[in-house]
């Protein structure tokens, strides 16, 4: 049992190393993926900071958690394209015809995605601090906020795996990724208070998983938070993330095994 686990982890590490090597070979991709949320942060947190008002705080603080969630959403498309390319090109089949567990193949990919997300989030936090973002509840709560965002990014990496398994065409995936970024980003509380949305859209934004993650981060950081207490927001976000992750993992493995 222990030997099997050690082997599983060793495979995962080797396969994650493959993706990190990809990033070293195509540094432009890493830069562009990080640049996307940074531009968003600059546009909203700097250019629009006086144009948008949110109840109970400054917009440049309010928007940071939203841009953090954007990092996770922006990852879905690239992850899906990578998964689909490995499936089309036969690389996944090669691994699967070897004594390598399918789970290790996908863990390797999602964990390397998580490393990229961590770099992006660090860049977002750095630029945010320059623009005036401050967490107000001490280092532990600040770290907890980033842990929540990382957990969200990880769930989104698996959502990308599922999407890439179901849709094989790279151009379609590119468009779907962009659509997800806009729809889930804007129909949530990421950039605007849900209460400022047209009435019929409010329930959509409130049920959007992005909203619960962003709401919890604002609470942990003391950035113009509204609504639930930290405990309730934490429980909601944890339930939402676990459900998303479990669904994406189970459906991805099923879709891949049944091919």
């Amino acid at each position, binding site marked *: 049992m222990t030997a099997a686990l050690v082997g599983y982890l060793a495979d995962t590490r080797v396969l994650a190393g493959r993706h990190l*090597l990809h990033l070293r070979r195509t540094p432009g991709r890493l830069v562009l993926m990080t640049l996307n949320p940074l531009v968003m942060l600059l546009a909203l947190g700097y250019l629009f900071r006086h144009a948008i008002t949110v109840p109970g705080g400054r917009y440049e603080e309010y928007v940071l958690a939203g841009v953090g969630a954007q990092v996770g959403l922006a990852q879905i498309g690239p992850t899906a394209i990578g998964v689909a390319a490995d499936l089309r090109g036969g690389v996944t089949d*090669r691994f699967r*015809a070897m004594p390598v567990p399918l789970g290790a193949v996908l863990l390797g990919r999602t964990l390397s995605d998580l490393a990229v997300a961590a770099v992006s989030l660090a860049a977002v936090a750095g630029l945010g601090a320059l623009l005036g973002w401050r967490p107000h509840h001490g280092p532990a709560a600040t770290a907890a906020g980033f842990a929540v965002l990382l957990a969200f990014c990880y769930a989104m990496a698996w959502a990308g795996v599922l999407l890439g398994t179901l849709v094989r065409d790279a151009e379609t995936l590119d468009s779907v990724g962009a659509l997800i970024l806009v729809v889930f980003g804007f129909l949530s509380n990421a950039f605007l208070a849900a209460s400022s949305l047209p009435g019929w859209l409010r329930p959509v934004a409130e049920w959007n998983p992005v909203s619960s993650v962003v709401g919890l981060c604002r609470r942990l950081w003391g950035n113009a938070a509204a609504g639930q207490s930290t405990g309730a927001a934490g429980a909601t976000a944890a339930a939402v993330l676990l459900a998303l992750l479990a669904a994406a993992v189970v459906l991805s493995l099923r879709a891949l095994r049944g091919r």
Partner: protein
Amino acid sequence: MTAAIRAEGLRKAFGGRPVLRGVDLEAPAGTVLGVLGPNGAGKTTTVRILTTLLAADAGRASVAGFDVAARGREVRRRIGLTGQSTAVDGLLTARENLALIGRLLRLGRAGTRRRVDALLDRFGLAAAADLPAATLSGGLRRRLDLAACVLGEPAVLFLDEPTTGLDPVSRTVLWDLVRDLVGGGATVLLTTQYLEEADALADRIAVVDAGRVIAEGTPAALKRKAGRDRLEVVLARPAETAETARLLTRLAGHPARPDPDRAAVAVPLPGGLDDLARVAAGLSAAGVAVTDFTLHRPTLDDVFFALTGAGEAEPAA
């Protein structure tokens, strides 16, 4: 002799559409089994089931002595697969591609390096070893793919259309590599659409069509099924077609078949060079003017067309 690959009654349907309708295959250890068939015949699905990538709806199969459904992990320890598309990572170099496989096979750092260097040499990849695989030619990428497949010294190799899309030179190189691997004791299942390829490499050939094995045997036996050598002459004066057919029937001792539209006559000619000389002399003596004089040996194409009745309907892609 023990079978390294055995399949009995494999069935598989996708969304209600049957792809395999009961496939039986057997390859003794150390032999090459060619699975020959058109697109859509079920070759790739068969390979995917035998390599544990896909579960069959019905039937059983064992590879290297292990049941593919129940003992998948044991099977995967003993096989190598090159799929229809070249499964190399374009961003990694040839060396890194192989090293990745070596580490997943737990060959150790030093063991991996030794084995990778040896394979790069043997597959003629040494000069290209440190270039990104995406920049290699199709032939080199295929070689790299095959090298990755044999890195773990598998007992059974599955090569799914390994030379599709390759230029003739690369194809010959790949054939030599496959022969070399079989010489080393491996069992190979090779799918192909090329009759020539099955003929060149396989000890036995299974012809598949529409999800069934419709013929099985050695290349020589299958060719015998397709018929004997056949002489075809094309006449300078079309009016002489019927008369020449009678002459050829007498000379060859077999019924000749005239084709008035093409001013051609075909006749079976199993007797080799002597028959050929007698017929040629006879035609010349009778003063028949001939523009084309060809001896056709039966090919696997003939087998295939004879068995499937292809040409009537285009097989599904």
